[in-house]
């Protein structure tokens, strides 16, 4: 069975500071990894994904995540956050079949 651990339930950070949201997964098979973002009172939007190839993946709004197979991690980073990045971030894993398993989410709180 697959599982995802997001150790930080909440990460407060000041605007323009760097941030890292941690994600560790457990799986006995090859995995696909995703980060989804949920803005207040909205649905989930895909932020970025790792399927294969380069272990560093980037989103259009400055986030990046690195797949580390030996550490079974897929941490999300941004070098300089904005107020508008305040949201709930979910890491998820799929084994290639229909089921996505989500972590418990990390609330990113950006303050001025």
């Amino acid at each position: 069975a697959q599982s995802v651990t997001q150790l930080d339930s909440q990460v407060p950070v000041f605007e323009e500071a760097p941030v890292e949201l941690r994600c560790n997964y457990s799986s006995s098979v090859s995995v696909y990894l995703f980060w989804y973002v949920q803005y207040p009172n909205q649905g989930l939007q895909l932020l970025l994904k790792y399927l294969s190839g380069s272990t560093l993946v980037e989103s259009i709004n400055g986030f990046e995540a690195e797949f580390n197979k030996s550490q079974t991690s897929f941490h999300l980073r941004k070098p300089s956050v904005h107020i508008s990045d305040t949201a709930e971030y979910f890491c998820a894993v799929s084994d290639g079949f229909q089921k996505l398993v989500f972590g418990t989410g990390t609330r990113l709180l950006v303050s001025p």
Partner: protein
Amino acid sequence: DTAVSQTPKYLVTQMGNDKSIKCEQNLGHDTMYWYKQDSKKFLKIMFSYNNKELIINETVPNRFSPKSPDKAHLNLHINSLELGDSAVYFCASSQVGVAGYEQFFGPGTRLTVL
């Protein structure tokens, strides 16, 4: 155009009532899902349909019954609502064969049972 839409957006009802939530996707996907997000924001899959056939049925009370009249629609009917059913319910869709089965989510339906 909205890719995955759900109605209603908010649903407030009394315990014991029966209610339905509707979901439609216009992405041409062949697989649709229902997720439940509880008050602590934890997301868990409930059901998945592929080409109108049930393929994932997690441990969900049988008061919950999904129905897929066609590939573009997946509805969720809930009988005898209980307080613990209060949550946000998300519909999602994906296309089999697309690597990683990226899922597209609807805006959610916030169900409040009084």
